[in-house]
């Protein structure tokens, strides 16, 4: 099926890490570093104040931040990143209403073979504009994106905004008319995960992860609905959509999959309200790492999205 990826391919995201506030500073709560041990070591020895470095900036500005190129920037681990071949990063703060919970940081390398996109869209004047994004080698698609705006309800980005729910789109470029389809198709992008990033003050941000066959962002995507309006008072979540390179479609309209708080990685995110990154044996479904990100909306944890590599 389209969007299914062979596990031997390299991945678009090389590092994912979760930073949580502790006594007024951000400390590392978990990360997936692959073979980049030195960068992992540097990270473990680092903490950030509010406004410091990339995680601190996302916290202070209460908005997702894209950073392309570390030299001369506020990025604090530039040397270690350079040594590890990392060139770009995206930081996504997690807020529950006005309460700050954590920052998820993903870091990517460079190279002509790296195709994919991590984008941040921001509402201005009633439409969503590209705030910034990292596209690897998908330069034309980057240009198209910079010149595209989404009204409510249109496309993956406008759809997420209007529906206030994460959306997983398939076959972005293959014959179907994803709004940026033609360019996405040429870039080899196949699967798109869009999710709302609620921020204090009600400003609208939408984050998209657009995955390509050659350098997938993930091999398995899951969207869990945890709203009380859907699952009731119990702290549970229903898998509402997902695809997997191994299992195929993960949704089942006759028999819903459920999970409960503290059960597995998704359950832990459900219980704690904080993102989680797990590696190796802790990651599930035969994958070597998983990132699970909670979305807090309307005074509750509304959804968890998870992606596995």
């Amino acid at each position, binding site marked *: 099926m389209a969007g299914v990826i062979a596990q031997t391919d390299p991945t678009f995201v090389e590092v994912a890490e979760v930073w949580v506030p502790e006594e007024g500073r951000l400390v590392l709560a978990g990360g997936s570093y692959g073979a980049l041990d030195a960068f992992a070591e540097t990270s473990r020895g680092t903490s950030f104040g509010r406004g410091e470095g990339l995680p601190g900036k996302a916290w202070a500005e209460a908005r997702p931040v894209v950073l392309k190129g570390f030299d001369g920037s506020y990025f604090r681990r530039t040397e270690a990143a350079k040594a590890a071949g990392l060139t770009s990063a995206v930081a996504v703060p997690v807020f529950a209403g006005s309460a700050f919970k954590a920052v998820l940081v993903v870091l990517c390398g460079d190279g002509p073979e790296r195709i994919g996109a991590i984008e941040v869209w921001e509402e201005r004047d009633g439409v969503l504009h590209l705030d910034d994004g990292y596209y690897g080698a998908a330069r034309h698609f980057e240009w198209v994106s910079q010149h595209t705006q989404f009204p409510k*309800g*249109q496309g993956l980005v406008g759809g997420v905004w209007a529906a206030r729910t994460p959306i997983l789109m398939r076959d972005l470029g293959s014959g179907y008319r994803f709004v940026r389809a033609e360019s996405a198709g040429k870039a080899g992008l196949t699967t798109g995960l869009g999710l709302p990033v609620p921020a204090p003050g009600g400003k609208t941000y939408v984050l998209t992860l657009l995955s390509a066959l050659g350098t997938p962002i993930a091999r398995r995507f899951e969207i869990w609905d945890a709203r009380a309006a859907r*699952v009731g008072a119990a702290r549970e979540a229903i898998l509402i959509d997902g695809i997997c390179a191994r299992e*195929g*479609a993960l949704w089942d309209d006759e028999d819903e999959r459920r999970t409960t708080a503290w059960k597995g990685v998704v359950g832990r995110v459900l219980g704690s309200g904080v993102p989680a990154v797990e590696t190796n044996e802790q990651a599930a479904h035969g994958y070597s790492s998983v990132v699970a990100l909670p979305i807090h909306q*309307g005074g509750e944890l509304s959804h968890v999205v998870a992606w596995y590599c």
Partner: protein
Amino acid sequence: MPKEKLVIVGAGMASGRLLEHLFEAEPDRFEVTVFNAEPRGCYNRIMLSPVLSGEKSWSEIVTHDDAWYAAKGVTCRFGEKVVAIDRARKTVSGERGEVPYDRLVIATGSSPFIIPVPGRDLPGVVSYRDLDDTNAMIEACKPGARAVVIGGGLLGLEAAAGLRLRGMEVTVLHLSGHLMERQIDASAGYLLKQDLERRGIDVRLKASTAEILGEGRVEGVRLIDDTEIPADLVVMAVGIRPSTALAAAATLEVGRGILVDAQMRSATDPEVFALGECVEFEGAVFGLVAPLYDQAKVLAKTLLGEDDTFVLRELSTKLKVTGCDLFSAGDFAEGEGREDVVFRDPARGVYKRLVIEGDRLIGAVMYGDTADGGWFHGLIKDRADVSEMRETLIFGPAFQGGEPLDPTAAVAALQPEAEICGCNGVCKGSIVEAIGAGATDLGAVRAKTKASASCGTCTGLVEQILAVTMGGDYAAPKAQPVCGCTDITHEDLRRLIKAQELKSQPAVWQELGWRTPNGCHVCRPAVNYYLLADWPLDYTDDPQSRFVNERNHANIQKDGSYSVMPRMWGGITTPDELRAIADAADRYGVPTVKVTGGQRIDLLGVKKEDLPAIWGDLNAAGMVSGHGYTKGLRTVKTCVGTDWCRFGTQDSTGLGIRLEKMLWGSWTPHKVKLGVSGCPRNCAEATCKDVGIICVDSGFEIGVSGAAGMDVKEVERLAKVATEDEVVEWVVAFVQLYREHAKYLDRPYKWTAKVGMDWVRETLADAATRADLNHRFAISQSVYQRDPWAERTEEQQKRRYLPLADLTLEAAE
């Protein structure tokens, strides 16, 4: 033993499920041939809408691929239509040849209903049933392209949401007054419409398609009201019909569908069975998947020689639009002996309604919170006795001691910029700010912000904002609510309708947390009036929310007959009018003709069925309804003025006629009567009218809020003006102020007593305010200044006045 030859016509979901059951039970019993007109096997048709939207891929929804059929040894004749069935020879003929059968299953499904309008065959007009339709729609999706979806049912709305996600500009046309009217009620329909509009989908209700426009290709849709909507794609999703042509040609008995018994055996031939959407069973036809799967299970048993019986069961509905949470099950029509339990949370956009009959739950509709849908559906299906949990049923299975409904929820949901005090232009945010800065009671808020410091109608709202903001620290005094459906007062209701821009009855019920599905006989007339007064261009008057006299446009009398009273402008009539009235009285056997206190002639004792005819006759003589039955302008009583009277100072008759011609037809909170007297001798008794003008040498004295009914009261002076034009301007401004602010069923004297004459005078003293009020009145009159008699003498309308047992009515479909 040779295998039985089983031929199945159709490879839809029911057919696929049947094969699964058969192969699971006895894999080697049948030699199966499956015909399918579509060039593919079984897929999950109900998931086509996520494929349309891009949220699923085609490969994900294939349930039985070629490999599956091959592994089971099924002969697939896909992409081949069956042209005939010969029951005598027991053969099925496809386009590429004949196959014999021992048992035959017809599972031809359904076909979309295409509304018979001109242009329906144009390229670009598609239905929505299968993958080919879906692909045709996807192909039509180009940036900026426009789609019109005809039909706001399940399929239509899923198509609309999918096309919108694909980037199209989408308009949904729906014939009924709310979306998905077969599955949900008006309140849920209101929330659904809001949700779709938030996605940028244009939803038009009561929209009837007249024609699909285009030359060589679809270019637009024209509605019967001549609105034209441009379109590059038109999707017809108005319903389905069982596909029965093949069965009928084989002389199988067909009603709406192929008639079958509870074992899915055709009524005509014991070796021929039917399954799925092409079937009719006990008068029912099928469109949802659950009963199809039940049928497949029963038919598998039947074919295997086992006993099973298909029974109709309660179905539930969900809409597959990401982010739309909707659930309905059972029967939720209003009816005798049925009781509603309603829960609304305006802030979260939640609506839940349960319908209870006796001790059983028989229906459930929910929007925005569907967590307990499955549980309610279970109670409906099981016909469970719910008497023990009746009080708390709506809170669902996890109920832990439910909270009472919060009457302040509507105010809490208001945005900071929502205007609370219209007089002084104070918004909610300013009041909250003042409370934060230490204004902790009404007096302090009033002193700080001026909110509720003028007419005072927003006092209740300010108190609620105090309650919401201060929590337990503030106890609001008890006020008289509109009725048992709500805790909101009339004054708050009017203010909230304006502040939240509520423009329909379902909007009021939902956003203000009404406890009943559709209001009651007390609140509906008030809400109907407030909506039409505040939003004349957006809201359509609802006759069902009116008292019987207003609905019939005539006063019902104690013997059940009606009175008919034409308007006599300013009390002036002509010999021709008098002749026409006399002729009408003769023709319709009117027993009593009375000259009224309002200077008009009343025909009393007219039979209901004669009303349209007598109106028609009076219309023909140039007369219009006198509105002797309305909460609106009744009469303008005049004296003869300077034309004839020695004492007259002005043309009081002319002014009265002018005022009456200006004001007639307008709806008001209660009836409004005017008087214009040509001199202070006051022959027109203007000083006890709602609005009374006394002409004097130097101009006109305008008095308002008089009364001469249960209460007797002299008018209070509003203003003195020099010219007739000014009189008209002031009077219209006063009437419009009364229309916009008064509680329903308060005459002007009661209203001014509440808000204070000083406030009325101050407000109207401002020329710009008067001009605005006149402008808004003119807008309202552009909609409502119509003669109800003329409208009701048309053929269609006449029927409403005929006795119920009229046998000339055409049979309903």
